[in-house]
């Protein structure tokens, strides 16, 4: 019960593919405060990259979203027990069937050469994943990973 928040950051950026690298670098830099192993940093970067790519590829498909509204909100927070919580949020179209979206190899965009492995990678590279989505409102992906004892 003594698990308290130690540090937190939030950043908002446009859903442009060039920001995928930016997002994972920011998160890796934040997570480095927990003195993680090299492998943990690699896992965090990959999981963040997958979550952010989903927002960029899927969330704002269609004409109803003006460029300035196509944003991704990235939050990082870590706790006294060394758990890092990553949140990737968009205000896009939402996911109709989350269970199906999370199935390995399921993709709505095969022409874009999406492998359909995004959620599978997030699941295997972190300890816990929570996905919340509302049609027309957006999607929030929460990833949790235990890094170290601070």
């Amino acid at each position: 019960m003594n698990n308290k928040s130690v540090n937190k950051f939030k950043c908002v950026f446009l859903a442009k593919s060039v920001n995928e690298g930016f997002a994972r670098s920011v998160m890796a830099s934040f997570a480095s405060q927990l003195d993680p192993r090299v492998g943990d940093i690699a896992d965090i970067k990959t999981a963040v990259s997958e979550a952010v790519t989903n927002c960029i590829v899927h969330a704002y498909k269609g004409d109803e979203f003006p460029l300035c509204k196509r944003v991704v909100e990235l939050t990082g927070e870590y706790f006294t027990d060394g758990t890092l919580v990553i949140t990737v949020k968009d205000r896009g179209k939402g996911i109709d069937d989350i269970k199906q979206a999370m199935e390995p190899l399921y993709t709505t965009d095969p022409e874009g050469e999406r492998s359909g492995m995004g959620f599978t990678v997030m699941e295997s590279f972190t300890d816990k994943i929570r996905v919340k989505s509302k049609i027309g409102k957006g999607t929030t992906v929460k990833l949790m990973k235990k890094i170290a004892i601070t």
Partner: protein
Amino acid sequence: MKLSYKYKDGIMQVSLSGEMDHHSAIYAREETDRIIRNEHPNLLIVDMSGITFCDSSGLGYIMGRYKLMKSFDGDIVLLSPSEPVKKMVFLSGLNKLIKVEASDQ
């Protein structure tokens, strides 16, 4: 993302280095396909030893080139994948479909 290639006697080797994500995979894909269509190789060797980061977009890139080479009755080999690439390839089971070779002969 940097891409270079060499072609000799039907064998084309594409060497990729840098970070492979959705953003850079688009460039890698367009460049690789342009070269494949120019040279019509029988065998495509993709050298991914210089890839420092790879997410599932890298899988999409490999799968896409596999399909393209197969459509020409060609073949594809993954050469010396770096750790991040290997992790993705083995997680997805792509190694069962595509030949992975440790190093250059």
